[in-house]
């Protein structure tokens, strides 16, 4: 982790509140994410972690507060805009195109990079051909990087859970995102798969300099790989700081142990 340098604030979340009818999912949440950083969001079940990610990439629209991403401040946007601005994500329960092969799935990640026109693509001429070659090259690099060569042509539905998670990461990386949101990338994995995934997350961060925001339940993992941690409980922020500080925060301990 010595090669990368943590830079300026790239994402700033200010006083975000999100309600679903009478249910307050998030209340006055503020935190920031610096460039090249690995930022974890933790908290007990129902704390609002996934909601927070959904606000960042435009699935949910908060009632209050603003988000500043690379100098641009806004209340909400749609997922298409988020993807165009370089935010990619993976999901808690895998969202892959199960009918397509691994290769095709990762190729969909290049969707927004395609500039050639409809006719050029249908007739396979001009820019369309060049783009396809270029996109394929990038995808093959990612396949090598995440060691998915052996399943390149396998339909995703046939793969084991751990590999599916990796394919999802690959698809997110194919968009060459500046920020990557990972929703429980290690949930449901065995120890070996977790180790692999940890390594891939760290390598991604190091080699591509991708800023990573991740939600994770495995405290060992979180404390090992993240630079700073936000702790949520019942939609409120109860802790924020480097792993060592958060770990010893009485508020956080109380939330996790459920002591009153």
């Amino acid at each position, binding site marked *: 982790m010595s090669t990368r340098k943590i830079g300026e604030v790239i994402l700033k979340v200010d006083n975000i509140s999100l309600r679903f009818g009478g249910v307050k999912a998030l209340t006055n949440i503020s935190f920031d994410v610096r460039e090249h950083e690995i930022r974890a969001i933790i908290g007990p079940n129902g704390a609002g972690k996934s909601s927070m990610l959904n606000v960042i*990439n435009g*699935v949910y629209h908060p009632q209050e507060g603003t988000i500043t991403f690379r100098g641009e401040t806004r209340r909400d946007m*749609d*997922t*298409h805009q*988020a*993807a*165009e601005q370089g935010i*990619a*994500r*993976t*999901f808690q329960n895998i*969202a*892959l*195109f*199960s*009918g*397509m092969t691994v290769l095709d799935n990762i*190729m*969909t*990640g290049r*969707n*927004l990079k*395609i500039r*050639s026109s*409809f006719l050029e*693509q*249908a007739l*396979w001429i001009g820019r369309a051909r060049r783009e396809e070659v270029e996109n394929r090259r990038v995808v093959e690099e990612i396949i090598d990087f995440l060691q998915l060569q052996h399943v390149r042509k396998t339909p995703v539905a046939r793969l084991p859970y751990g590999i599916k998670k990796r394919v999802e990461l690959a*698809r*997110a990386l194919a*968009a060459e995102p500046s920020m990557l949101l990972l929703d429980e990338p290690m949930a449901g994995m065995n120890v070996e798969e977790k180790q692999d995934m940890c390594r891939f997350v760290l390598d991604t961060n190091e080699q591509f300099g991708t800023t990573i925001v991740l939600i994770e339940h495995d405290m060992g993992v979180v404390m090992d790989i993240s630079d700073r941690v936000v702790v949520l409980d019942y939609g409120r922020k109860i802790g924020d700081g480097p792993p060592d500080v958060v770990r010893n925060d009485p508020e956080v301990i109380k939330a996790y142990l459920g002591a009153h």
Partner: protein
Amino acid sequence: MQFFFEVLIAGLLSGVMYALVALGFVLIFKASGVFNFAQGAMVFLAALTVAGLKDEFGLSLWAAIPVAMVVMIALGFLTERVVLRPLVNQHDITLFMATIGLTFFLEGLAQLVWGSNVRKLELGIEDVPFEAIMESTGMLVSQFDVVAALICGALVAVLALIFNKTKIGRALRAVADDHQAALSVGIPLQHVWGVVWAVAGIVALVAGLLWGARNGVQFALTFVALKALPVLILGGFTSVPGAIVGGLIIGASEKLAEVFIGPYVGGGIEGWFPYVLALVFLLVRPEGLFGEKIIRRI
């Protein structure tokens, strides 16, 4: 034996026309999970628009078709914007009800604009037997049916090209597979749904032209959609090849049943035989020949 093949070929060729209507259903169902009850009304509207433009405005066929195409594309995008977008995330049955409403609206609109008279639609293809085939094999094969089958084949080929090679086609397949994943790679769902409805509109136009030329452009065209139901049950609601194969099976079996079983029960079984076939099929393979297997945790 020769007669058997004659019936079989006639059946397969009419099956192509069923497949065409079923295709419109499959496109929309696959991409958005909406069972579009209005597909028949779209066929009717498209055919009536072409016939109306020809009769009332004196447009030639080749001028009327592009105009109708623009109408169907606009209708597709408008449907997504006005009918479906406000209902996003509602129950399937709500969306289904909305398309029933759309059916009445389109049927009314078509007749309001063009009147309710039966119109003739000439495509310039005559419904007479192919002479070459008649001379060489002695079989009667309708020229119209063969041309219709070729047009359908060309349409499917173009659709396949678009789905597999273009960005919007890939986006379409992605949306059909998983909405959430499609959103996360930056595919605008609503735009894709608009495109799907527009494509279904164009398919409806082709179906309307062929069915309209064959049976006359009249209100009964809307019932063509009902013929697509057994095709869908047989082929699966989510499979384009299924729609084609299902159409062929339904077309062939209903004609064969009519000719060879019909006489024993007094005839007229062509109308209901496909539904019985579909019913039997439901018992054995509820997801259809090519549909996605439904796996449920209990």
